[in-house]
């Protein structure tokens, strides 16, 4: 069965650079979520979208923005990167809000 696709899988950036993470949900899933998992930590919710509109917002820094496009894929844009942004970034999708979330493999971001 098709799963959530995330690209790139690994990304290395310098401080103050920008990064764009992409997420392609499971076909027919209309809801996308972004989570950040620091080393040895549990995933923390960043933001979610339902039908291309922001549906919920968590602890997402102002330096980050995200959107969901007409084909339901989503992009997380991160600017002015800091060392503390180094983490695994997961995207999840569901068939409607509040339904079971299926996670992608994650993008490992390293900020040097």
């Amino acid at each position, binding site marked *: 069965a098709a799963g*959530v696709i995330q690209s790139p899988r690994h990304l290395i950036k310098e401080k103050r650079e920008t990064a764009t993470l992409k997420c392609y949900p499971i076909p027919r899933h209309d*809801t996308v*979520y972004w*989570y950040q998992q620091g080393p040895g*930590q*549990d*995933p*923390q*919710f960043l933001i*979610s979208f*339902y039908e291309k509109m922001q*549906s*919920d917002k*968590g602890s997402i820094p102002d330096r980050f923005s995200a959107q969901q496009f007409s084909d339901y894929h989503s992009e997380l844009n991160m600017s002015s990167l800091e060392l503390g942004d180094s983490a695994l970034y*997961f995207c*999840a999708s*569901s068939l409607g*809000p*509040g339904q*079971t*979330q*299926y*996670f*992608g*493999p*994650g993008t490992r971001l390293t900020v040097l």
Partner: protein
Amino acid sequence: AQSVAQPEDQVNVAEGNPLTVKCTYSVSGNPYLFWYVQYPNRGLQFLLKYITGDNLVKGSYGFEAEFNKSQTSFHLKKPSALVSDSALYFCAVNYGGATNKLIFGTGTLLAVQP
């Protein structure tokens, strides 16, 4: 405040023995409860969920969990552990409604010895 607690950082069990990974949640509305498993350098894999109905929920790979409202618990269980079950297990809660986010526990590392 909405929260999930996993009191054990690590659980050790011998292969073939039953395993239990504990999870408790804070009471607020009608929570949806989930278990996910994370293998090293991999994403989170859905195991099972409780929304409503039968308190005993069966999921993937022989795992099951029991919802206990009076104890606000949702412990993950398996009758016979496999070495391949060794991984990091996360309990999560979603309170539904306008809040779609999953709130995760801190995770429990399950180590199954051969």
